[in-house]
Structure formats: structure tokens, C-alpha cells
């Protein structure tokens, strides 16, 4: 495991993986003091509901303090904080049981809960399920029906204005919300969400369905599904898109909240910059082939056997902001591009309609994401075209030399 932690650390902290968010020493000094004060204050509070103490869990699991600190330094890197914050991040992890979390499932496939169950880190299953105070989760808890409703009411009352509300799944608004009702009273998902969000400290939309409507909102959007940010107003809101969202990012957001009491820095689509500040393409293992104009033309061809770039079989990595090329999935085992499948842009708005699968971007009539003036997002349109232009230019020559016929694909 130590190797693995080293690996994660290296990836998180390597230069190419970092988006430039350095705000200068004065800023970090102030933030450091603030976090320190917050951590001290949290330490005086009782853990909620006698949750296990992470130190005990670590000991039980035979995880050494040294390994734990390495993990903390990797996470510090991921959160884009200076290395001096490492001890504070470690402290924040130890205080995870002071943050009450309520998890709602709306119109979804439960994939993000599934992903969370497999999250990353030193036996992070324990950290997430035992240490964070998951006060309510319909799928993972034992209670159901009226009992579950009571549990939710209790959690909302006890932790009024303090709980983090995680929402998985889209909000169906069509037919007055009748495509999704919850509980014995038949409350619509929309009403349910508004009710539970009212006294949340912050709302975290997890997965592409909750953030931008996701698959349920794909054309023709049969249920009139929208994302959480379309219906919640006047609350701090964090979007963690992707299908499924990466558990590392969920844990990152919780840690950041414990550490600073604030939401992390967000882009114009309300995504934390630490995770969505750069593109898949920036850190892709096939990038050298892209730059050299070496592409897979069709699955099963020589390019595929040689792990060439997947742009021509529809990879949307050049315009998808996410950290999966670094964090990867299933405890860092792999990610889609690793097995020769292009990225489908699952962390972008309307990913289904816009980035549909095996059409190369150039053929798919995609416009740059609009709205807001987040710098990297806005810049990307131009950068992308030049980069792709060069790549394809080289490629055309290479193909001609190889005598390979250009084929426009299926679109």
C-alpha cells in the first residue's frame, strides 16, 4: 500500500497535474491561521453519535502513522494547498466524525453510492462509512419506510444548519414531479430536495445527474429532469460531476469543508478547481501519440494494438475538465482511456447530447461551454482548436504515407 500512496502523491503533486492557483504567501498564511483556529475549535467538539475514531481504525487496520501522513500529503496536493498544510489536513481527516452528512438519492442509477463504497485511500471504506457521520443514506442504512423518514427528520433537526447535503440523481420536474416520488406521503423528489436542503450548511451535487441532469436529462428528456443547481438557490453549492463521480473528489470536498469551513474554490460551473481545473487530455498517458499524430482509426486496428491516441474514435479528453487521468478509478487501478475507450466527457454539462461517443469532436458540432467567465474553461476553445489542428495535420500526413484511406467514421 505504501507504494500506492507514493504513486498517488506523485501524481497529485506533479507539475503537469497542477492548475495554476497559487495565490501568494500572504493568502496562504491567512488561510493557514484560519484553518488552524477552526481545527482547534472542532477538536473541542464531541464526535457525533460516537462514531469510531479514525486513529483507532488506523491502528486496528495496522496502518502506520507514516503512511497516513503520506496519504494526507497526497490529499493536500490534490486540494491544491501548499505542502505546509499537510499536518492540518491530517488533523481534519481525524475530525471527519464532526461533519454530519445527509445523502439523498433522486432520479439516478445509484452508481455514485456504488463508487463511494469503493473509495480510495488507506482503507478509506472505513474513513468514509465509519468516520464521516453519514446520518442518512437511503440505500446504505438499515432503516426503511417510516423508520427511515423519522431518521431523516431527526438528523435534520439535530444538525440543523450544520449538515452537508449530498445529492445523487437528477430532479424530474415533468408532470408536476410525478416521475419520482419519495416516501409514504408520495412527496415529489423536487419537494423532498427543497425541504432537506433548507437547513443544510452546503449542498454537494454528486455525479452528472445531480449536477447537470445527466442521462435522465438526455434528449428528449422524457421526465423533464434538471440538475440540483437549477432548483436550489441561496445556498453554497458544489458540483462534483462525472458518471460516476470520483470518490476521491467527494472525500476531498468533505475534507476541505472540515479544514476551512468553506467550499473549495469553484469554476463557473461550480466545480472544485482542485479536481476540475485541468483537462483529461493534459495528463493523458496517450498524449504523446496525440501530439505525434498517431491515432486509433478503428477498434482492433494496429493503432489500437499500440495504444495510440483515441481522439479519432471519439475521445473527448481534450475538452473535458476532470482529474480521472490522474486519480483514476477503483483505487487507482485504471480509467477508461487505459483500456482503449475514449473519454465521453461525462463531467461536462449535457455530456450525453453534446459529446456522444464515437464521433470525433470535430464532427460533433460541439460548442465551447458557455456561461460564466471561468478562465480555463473559456480559454479552452481556442487552445483546443489549435492543438487538435496540429495533431490532425500531422496525422493526415502520416496516414497518407501509410497509404491508409481516410474514413469519416459513422456519424
Amino acid at each position, binding site marked *: 500500500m505504501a507504494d500506492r500512496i507514493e504513486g498517488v502523491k506523485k501524481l497529485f503533486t506533479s507539475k503537469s497535474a497542477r492548475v495554476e492557483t497559487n495565490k501568494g504567501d500572504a493568502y496562504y498564511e491567512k488561510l493557514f491561521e484560519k484553518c488552524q483556529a477552526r481545527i482547534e475549535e472542532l477538536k473541542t467538539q464531541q464526535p457525533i453519535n460516537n462514531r469510531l475514531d479514525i486513529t483507532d481504525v488506523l491502528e486496528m487496520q495496522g496502518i502506520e502513522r507514516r503512511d497516513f501522513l503520506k496519504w494526507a500529503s497526497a490529499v493536500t496536493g490534490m486540494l491544491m494547498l501548499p505542502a505546509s498544510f499537510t499536518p492540518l489536513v491530517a488533523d481534519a481527516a481525524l475530525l471527519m466524525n464532526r461533519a454530519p452528512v445527509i445523502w439523498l438519492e433522486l432520479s439516478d442509477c445509484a452508481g455514485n453510492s456504488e463508487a463511494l463504497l469503493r473509495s480510495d485511500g488507506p482503507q478509506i*471504506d472505513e474513513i468514509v462509512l465509519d468516520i464521516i457521520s453519514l446520518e442518512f443514506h437511503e440505500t446504505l442504512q438499515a432503516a426503511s419506510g417510516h423508520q*427511515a423518514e423519522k431518521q431523516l427528520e431527526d438528523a435534520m433537526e439535530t444538525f440543523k444548519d450544520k449538515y452537508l447535503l449530498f445529492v445523487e440523481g437528477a430532479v*424530474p420536474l415533468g408532470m408536476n414531479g410525478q416521475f419520482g416520488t419519495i416516501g409514504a406521503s408520495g412527496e415529489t423528489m423536487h419537494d423532498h430536495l427543497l425541504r432537506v436542503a433548507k437547513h443544510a450548511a452546503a449542498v454537494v451535487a454528486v455525479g452528472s445527474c445531480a449536477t447537470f441532469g445527466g442521462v435522465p436529462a438526455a434528449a428528449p428528456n*422524457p421526465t423533464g429532469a434538471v440538475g440540483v443547481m437549477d432548483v436550489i438557490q441561496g445556498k453554497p453549492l458544489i458540483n462534483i460531476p462525472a458518471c460516476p463521480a470520483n470518490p476521491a473528489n467527494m472525500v476531498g470536498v468533505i475534507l476541505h469543508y472540515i479544514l476551512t469551513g468553506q467550499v473549495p474554490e469553484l469554476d463557473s460551473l461550480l466545480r472544485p478547481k482542485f479536481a476540475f481545473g485541468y483537462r483529461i487530455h493534459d495528463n493523458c498517458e496517450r498524449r504523446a501519440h496525440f501530439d505525434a499524430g498517431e491515432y486509433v482509426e478503428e477498434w482492433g486496428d494496429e493503432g489500437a494494438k499500440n*495504444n495510440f491516441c483515441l481522439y479519432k474514435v471519439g475521445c473527448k479528453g481534450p475538452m473535458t475538465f476532470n482529474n480521472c487521468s490522474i486519480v483514476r478509478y477503483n483505487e487507482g487501478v485504471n480509467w477508461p482511456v487505459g483500456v482503449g475507450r475514449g473519454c465521453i466527457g461525462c463531467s461536462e454539462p449535457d455530456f450525453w447530447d453534446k459529446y456522444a*461517443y464515437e464521433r470525433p469532436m470535430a464532427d460533433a458540432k460541439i460548442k465551447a461551454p458557455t456561461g460564466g467567465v471561468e478562465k480555463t474553461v473559456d480559454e479552452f476553445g481556442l487552445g483546443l482548436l489549435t492543438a487538435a489542428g496540429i495533431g490532425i495535420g500531422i496525422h493526415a500526413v502520416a496516414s497518407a504515407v501509410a497509404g491508409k484511406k481516410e474514413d469519416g467514421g459513422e456519424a
Partner: protein
Amino acid sequence: MITKTILEQIEGEASLYFDMKDNLVDFVTIAFPHFRGMEKMLEGKNAMDALVITPRVCGICGHSHVLASVRAIEDAYKNSGFTVNITQKASKVRELTLVLELIQNHLKWIYLVLVPHLKELCGSKELLNTPLKGAYGASLATKILAIFAGQWPHSSYMVPGGITSDFTYVDLTKAKSHLQKLTEYFETETLGVSVEEFLSFESCKDFASLESDFAKIEHLLIDLGMQKKGHAKDAFLSLGTHEFSHAAKVKGTKLFKVVSKYIDTQDAYAPDEKSYAKNALYKKQFYETGPLARCMAKEFKLIKNMHRRFKDSAYTRVMARIYETAHLLAFCKKLLDEIDISEVSCIETIALKNISGIGEGVVEAPRGPLIHRVQIKEGIIKSYKIITPTQYNIASGTKENPSPAQQAMLHCSQADAKFIFRTFDVCSVCTTH
């Protein structure tokens, strides 16, 4: 009087309407109040898009969906005169990743669904509520899956002609060592005996001396009389063609041939609430699907023995799911040993825009047969139909013709009925898609 109960913890929600007589269940109707409309959004899209969108039908069995999708598209190729061949390597890896999805599902079901509800029902201190155990085993299984499929859930690495991953010898070795760890975990934590020995058991006497989670579960089921409760139709269906299962219709213990074209759907009977589920039937009759059905079709001695004594009780149903987990672990090992890395992963196919025709893909998903039916015109989807396993088991029929789950809940207390309902491993998101 009819009382409504909401059941969560089944990936989504189901409403059960209990009609009680003398404190026993007289009839139950089942409604699923959620709907996303996945079939509709597939219409008009490039058929290859189905390989990305259908795994999103379900966060637990997305892999089964992608295999059903790719099989349906390959069938459409065949029906338009272009047979798609795939290598042994591709077909074995497809099978392997599917089986791993079944395994992770079963492990989670044992520790996140079965154990907590068993404990609740009997108030026993014997069995510890350890959801993390299930999560740990499941994450080992999905780690192996991710080596070949890129990620789990929602992987899309299958394409007409094979698979996209070109894994190395090192990857294969990694997979083997993870599998070894997973098997050892299951042997020490769950079974209390080696998988090999467990699979050689022929009667309950063979495991009488064990003191494992498995043995405790078995005792508690007997204490609760679950060997005498939860009887469904005593008719089973296993459809997908795989090496680990056998396609057959089983009535009692007799095996019959099956042809998937006889599967059809009808609206659920749900007088009290709008339900977005449809019932699935074979030749207009209800059958039970899933691990018990597969074990009966495969004629495993231990399960047949249990069936001889206790028929298709809740007890036999639970035991079959645990037994199948062991069977699948052994099968995974065999597959990994057989994979020949020198074969190609994918054989190029002609472009999809040349394809017009219908296709069907049938696979065994964790809960039973999953069918995708697609109609393609020049590469574009004209219509798409998905029939999921829960639609057979948890269909909502009338009093005269109840579904397996409805029948199984009859004449029980409400508490027992709710437990029995869960022995079918209900999945709501799949059912309504």
C-alpha cells in the same frame, strides 16, 4: 384493509400495498414510483451510443447491460448478413468481467442487505452487522474488473468485434493475485471452508460443523422457519448463454428448452399507485429468475438437495445466492488461467452505417436474464427495449395470477413478507429504467 409500505435500500424505492387478513398477508401489489425513460432517449441515436448509455441504466449491473447491448448489436450485424466473429480471448474477458459483477453484487447483498435484515427480524446477537466486509469484498472484485474494463461502475469497453483493452501479462498477473485475495477473503470471512471443499458439499450435513458467517446465516434462517416460508412458483428461468450457467426452463426439477422470443411484457397490476414497472413473462407465465434459477438449471447437488427438502423457500433462495458466489469465484480462476494473451482483443468490423436490422442480446445478470432488443436502420436506433430480471421476480400480477415475489409473500406476517421480498434482491432502478 390495504396498508402501504415503502421499501428502500433496494437501489431506489418500491411501494408494497399489503392486504392483510387475520394478521397474515392475503395479497400484495407492488409499485415502482420512479422513472427515467432510458428506452426513449436511445431512439434516433447512433447504435454505438447504446454501449455508453445502457450501462447507466443501473449502477450495480451496468456491465450486464453493456454486454447485452453489444450482443444485441452483433446480432443485428448477423441479421443483416455480416457475421461478427470475436476471439476466445475477447469472449473470455467479457465473461470474466460479467461474472465479477455478479460476485460483487452477491457479496454486497449478503452483508448490506441480508445480514442487517436477518438480524432485525430475529434480534440475534450471533451475527455481526458488518457492511464494510461486503464493501471490502466487492471492491476487490471491481478492482479486477477495472483492470480489463477501465472502471466500475459504468464501464463501456466492449465493442462489436471484441473488447478495446489490450492488457499485458503484468495486468493478468495482477488480476490473478487480486482474485486469490478475494477468494481467501470469502473463504475466511464468509464460508469458513475452502471454496473447493464448499462446492463439493452435497447436503446440509456437510456444513453442520462450520462456525462461519455462512453457518450463522443458515442457522438463523432455520430459526426463523424460512425453509417453510417464501415459496414462489417452483418454476425457474435461466436464459443467457454462458459457460457458468445453463439456459433452461425448470419446473420443479425437470429441465426444458427455452427460446427467448417467448419473453414478453405487460403492464404491472398496480391499482393504488402509478407504477413505471412492467411485468415480464415467458409464454405468458411467471417464472423465478436469478441465482436459484441458475443453480437449478445447472443441477448443483447441494441446491437440488435443499430444493428437494424445502422447495423454493426463502431459505433455498438465500443459500443459492451464497452458493453461486463460490461457484463463480472458482469459475473466474478457470477463466483467468485460460485467457491467451497473444490473441487479438478486437476484430475490425464493417461500419455500423451499413447495418439495418433487428438484434437481441441476452445475458445472465446478477438477478437473472437481461434482454436488450434493438431495431437499427442504417446504424441509427429505431427502437430499443430492455427487459430486466427484476421484472420477472417482482412483477405485480393479479390475485389470480401472482408473480413469484407476490406468491412468496402470501400467508406470512408482514415482517416476514418484507424479508422474503428482499431475498429476491430487488433492484428498482433497473426495473423501471
